[in-house]
């Protein structure tokens, strides 16, 4: 689940050098949209799709009208995304109220699954499977398709790419939408585990940051590895030292940064 969140963030940061602080809020927005959709269509997967599309649209608008104006003004972009995150957070509070809203697990995945002597909640397994599937799809997209090649060219050298005729600015919008879609859909898919509640964005954003910094910017493998390690450490941490679990969450990131400022697989030092 962390991967879905982080991959979008890493993409946007790696390609567009924009630290999209709205990402956590987009995740939350997705979750809330999912809640509303599910009131009418009680199917989690459709809701995820719908949320993904809706959030992607929102992201596209954001990128096109606001972020574009600030091209190059890195600090400005960060602040604007932060501002928008606040706006979304409060809007969600107004729209959906202050109580946490649980998202029900799909009935087919409610029973626990037995595997190799351990018992896993089936839904969590499903999420892992989805994450892996998404990772593979993203990987194929990046490495095998023309779109992916263009995106990679845009990352490495935007001026050159645009000189060669690659529509860099439209690509940016597409990437942003893709990242936003991942966040939005992720919000719904993560719903049964996290529920939708105010403050979800502030809980998710630092996780996205940790995963991306730990795993390295601009690298899908890094996002995956980062998500895995972080999730692992967190679960253990919560079990061993519940009070300080939050600190433990950050330890791998801090350790890795101390030795390798670009993260485990990063393309450049943040």
């Amino acid at each position, binding site marked *: 689940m962390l991967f879905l969140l982080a991959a979008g963030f890493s993409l946007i*940061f790696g390609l567009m*050098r924009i*630290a999209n602080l709205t990402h956590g809020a987009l995740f939350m927005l997705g979750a809330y949209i999912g809640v509303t959709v599910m009131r009418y269509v009680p199917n989690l997967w459709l809701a995820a799709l719908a949320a993904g599309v809706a959030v992607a649209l929102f992201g596209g608008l954001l990128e096109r009208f*606001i972020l574009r*104006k*600030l091209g190059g*003004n*890195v*600090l*400005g972009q*960060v*602040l*604007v995304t*932060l*501002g*928008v*995150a*606040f*706006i*979304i*957070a*409060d*809007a969600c*509070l*107004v729209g959906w109220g202050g109580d946490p809203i649980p998202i029900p697990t799909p009935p087919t995945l409610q029973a626990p699954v037995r595997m190799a002597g351990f018992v896993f909640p089936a839904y969590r397994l499903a999420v892992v499977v989805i994450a892996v599937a998404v990772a593979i799809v993203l990987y194929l997209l990046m490495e095998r398709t023309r779109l992916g090649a263009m995106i990679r060219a845009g990352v490495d050298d935007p001026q050159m790419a645009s000189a060669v005729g690659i529509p860099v600015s439209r690509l940016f919008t597409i990437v942003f939408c893709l990242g936003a879609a991942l966040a939005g859909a992720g919000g719904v898919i993560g719903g049964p585990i996290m529920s939708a509640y105010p403050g979800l964005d*502030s809980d998710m*954003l*630092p996780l996205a*940051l*940790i995963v*991306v*910094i730990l795993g390295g910017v601009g690298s899908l493998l890094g996002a995956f590895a980062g998500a895995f390690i972080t999730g692992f450490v967190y679960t253990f941490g919560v079990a061993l030292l*519940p*009070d*300080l*679990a*939050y*600190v433990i*969450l*950050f330890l791998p*990131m*801090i350790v890795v*940064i*101390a030795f390798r*400022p670009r993260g485990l697989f990063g393309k450049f*030092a*943040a």
Partner: protein
Amino acid sequence: MRWIVFIILAALLPLVAGEYYVNLSSQIVIFAVFAASINLLLGYGGLPTLGHAAYLGVAAYFSALLQLKLHYAHWLAAPLAVAGTTAMGCAFGLIALRATGLGFLMLTLALSQVLWGTAYRWVSMTDGDNGLRGLQRPMPFGLDLNQAMPFYYFTLVVGVIAIWLMARFVNSSFGATLKGARDQPRRMEALGYDVWLIRWITFVYASFWGAVAGLLFVYYHKYIHPVSLSLANSAEGLLAVIAGGSGTLAGPIVGAAIVLLLKNWASAYIERWNMLLGFVFVVIVVFMPEGVVPGFQRLWKRFVSRT
């Protein structure tokens, strides 16, 4: 010269304004010190930080805990709180300065979020969402600071000293090297400057003043809650700096006043301050990126050159 006038006006304020405004002014001074400490990093160091509330909050919690759990008197608790927070700043600086620019920003954000989350969850120490209450204001030289006016003067004195020291800092030789490192770090290295060390020292100094602001903060409110460590709080400070103008000394002070006044005025009409904060962020960044003070300085120069 303008400073002296300003200080005199500030000192005369309680004589003409009611208690509400005096209290508001105390808050502005505290926030101004906070914003000025952020500006050391952002405006003069070229290092944008989103985690500065960490120093404010930790110093506040330190002071509160020393008071409540160990019953330390203020003359002992205050320096301990500031020293402890500054030590934390040393460590955080080591981590955050492994990167520059955006990476630095994200690291400062991540670090302060740890503290924020810990403040909520370490209930045995911080009482989580309830915050710590029942705190006392200090009594320097036996003066009672519980009334608005004496507290205001106390805060004003501390604030003026703080800003004055920060001004000496940025105008010193070291300050010149800091500004140089902000503008051309590679060139500075080639001239013999240890840019990392310059930045780290500035980071620690900024965390020191953030801690001082934190003490003033907890003295004023007599209460501390994890929300003071939040990203929103750091962002408000950052907004104050940017709104007022990041390259100047007066900028953060003006910005602090603007943000606090806006917050107070707006919360009478609008419930959702965060949304307004977000809007203001977007508007200022897109339309007025250099802030209010440089804008005025420009207009003033044009006005003067015409007459």
